[in-house]
């Protein structure tokens, strides 16, 4: 079911791009601002599966603080780099391929986030604008060490997480006023990665690379852009990632400075 929805979103995206990109029914005003600098803060909480054989799941929570310098490469199409800091929480993940099985209760692990963003305006019609957007973010968690409790000898667990997220899909904005542009969006949204865990307890050692993957691969978002001044927009967005038995969510707020 989820796969069918993902496929549908991708197909719609692929169809809508060429369909609307040629004859535009509405000519947008040409902006003279070709450079944008955005800052964003995002939190998401989504279900991930991390042991394919056992189909184990837990929740991945993450905070992202991103800087997004962008440039309009062709008219209506902005490409941005993504640089930032992230905190990700993998608690409840269990590593059973180590001599002593370990369960994470480590809280948030910090790291850097790198990636890119593409936003292409496809068509403006009346007060509506259809845009296609895509984003790739790679989180590289810093290596962290924890004590292994309860044993009669000292032991250390060393973990290094990483994940990547790819999201792409159409977005429809509505120009409520000159300053306010709410929008809705549906995106193919996949997250995958690895958590490397090393265990050292006297003469015992082990290592496990745990693959992680999001259970849901689609999100539906609502958001709004609010222009404070001519060069400065505020942005907020809330997304849900539906699943049969649960729901993931994401909220984001940011500001975009154009010049």
């Amino acid at each position, binding site marked *: 079911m989820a796969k069918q929805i993902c496929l549908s979103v991708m197909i719609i995206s692929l169809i809508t791009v060429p369909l609307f990109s040629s004859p535009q029914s509405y000519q947008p005003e040409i902006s003279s601002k070709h450079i944008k600098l955005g800052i964003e803060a995002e939190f998401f909480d989504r279900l991930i599966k991390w042991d394919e054989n056992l189909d184990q799941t837990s929740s991945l929570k993450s905070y992202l603080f991103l800087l997004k310098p962008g440039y309009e490469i062709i008219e209506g199409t902005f490409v941005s780099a993504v640089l930032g800091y992230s905190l990700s929480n993998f608690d409840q993940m*269990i*590593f*059973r*391929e180590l*001599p*002593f*099985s*370990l*369960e*994470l*209760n*480590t*809280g948030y692990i910090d*790291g*850097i986030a790198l990636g890119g963003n593409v936003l292409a305006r496809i068509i403006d019609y009346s007060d509506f604008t259809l845009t296609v957007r895509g984003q790739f973010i*790679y989180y*590289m*968690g*810093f*290596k*962290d*060490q*924890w*004590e*292994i*409790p*309860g*044993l*009669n*000898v000292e*032991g*250390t*667990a060393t973990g*290094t997480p*990483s994940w*990547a997220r790819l999201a792409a899909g159409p977005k429809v904005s509505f120009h*409520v*006023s000159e*300053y*306010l542009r709410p929008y809705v969006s549906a995106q193919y949204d996949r997250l*995958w*990665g*690895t958590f*490397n865990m090393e265990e050292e*307890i*006297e*003469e*015992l050692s*082990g290592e496990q*690379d745990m*693959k992680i993957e999001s259970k849901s691969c689609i999100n539906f978002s609502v958001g*709004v852009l*609010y222009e*404070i001044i001519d060069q400065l927009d*505020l942005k*907020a*967005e*809330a997304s849900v990632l539906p699943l049969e038995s649960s729901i993931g969510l994401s*909220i984001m*707020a940011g500001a975009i400075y154009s010049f």
Partner: protein
Amino acid sequence: MKKTKTCNLFCFLLFILYTAHGFSFQSNDKQIISYFQDDQSFSQRTNQKSLPSQDKISYSSDHILVKFKPSIPDEYVQATMNSFQIKEYNVIPQINVFKIKIPESLSTEDILYLMKQHQYVEYAEPDYVAYATATPNDNFFQYQYALYNSGQNIGPPGSPQGLSSADIKATLGWEETKGTEDTVIAILDTGIDLLHPDIGNKIESSGRDFVNNDFEAVDDDGHGTFVAGIAAAETDNNEGIAGVAWNCQLLPVKVLDEKGEGYYSWISQGIIWAVDQDVAVVNLSLGGPVESTTLLRALEYAYQNDVVVAAAAGNEGSSVLFPAAYTDYCLAVAATDYNDLRLNWSNTGPEIDVAAPGKRIVSTVPTWYFGTGSIPYGFGDGTSFSTCHVSGLAALIISIKPWMTAEDVMNVIKYSADDVNKNDNPGRDVFIGYGRINMEKSLVPLIIGQKKMDDIHDWETTKTGF
């Protein structure tokens, strides 16, 4: 325009706000004792009720639990009770929760629904049924303090009482695994009663008899059957005892005769034969005071083939017997009691790796042992019986982590042991080694969360996995 912009800003802010874990083989140590004369009444006394499956959520159909809001006066509470025709109830005064008998006219679900809607009610919930964790229904499990010690009498009334938690945490360990049928423990001993009702179904084959040189390792002494039961008796079968390695199989290898004695050659051959049968664990509840290169080579063979060997330290209060003393290749096991205290007859030495309960251990005896009409179970003391607890644990570890080497398994068992004599002898010592084994810590995931003090925080990243 300014008004519109203010309104828009307000809408934007609204949006932001809206979205946020033996006896030894020497026959003079034979200590199986029939404490039970009245077999029939014993059986009745110990008959436990089978517990429901844990995944079955059940609750009382007779009563529910309700808490009224703190501000609601008593007369209003009583009026509410009357309106529901509730005639019987009790209060848990400390938390002001009412245990209300459900009127005959209403089902549990109906009254819960109605109560939850009521303006005076803070919460209403079913009175759920809780179950003990992974507790087998075997009749004599209550006497197996070694597996789960609640401080119970270890035997009929008047028997010694154990110290709560002085056990190997079997029930908690079983939450993680009860073992797999393809994991086999070789019992190198006097043989096993192949027809014992609590063992028969756990025996992989009739094994090998190096005493009589045949392929039917029948027990003509009793020691081997006792050891086998501790390690892996049929469990949760409403009968007898629970084995440590609940689902693992047993392979009898007879290397001791009817007097409980055997040549080193038989033992060495038995080890090698068992290894060649792809067993996971070899249990050696036996030993002798003299070292032997042949015995050592046999242990090395097992070790090199990643077969874990557990061996009894001995019961003479002297130095550790062989092969247990070859501690590089096996786990040397000492004995503790129902109070987690070391037993003074348990041999000592730097070779001791771990300890396990070895005092007043209940297990299986051959059906012929006490004669016709008697129940085939008894109590015994000895490091022999400590050893098979360790063998059972090793089998459980291998069941879930078959890729681990023998050395790794041995280290897991050692490092996870509870240093129960740490007040007098902190750390590894000559009495109980690293400590009394702990199945929970060996099997159940350990929860990590506290950062190392010398926490590193470099920018190194590793494989990305995509």
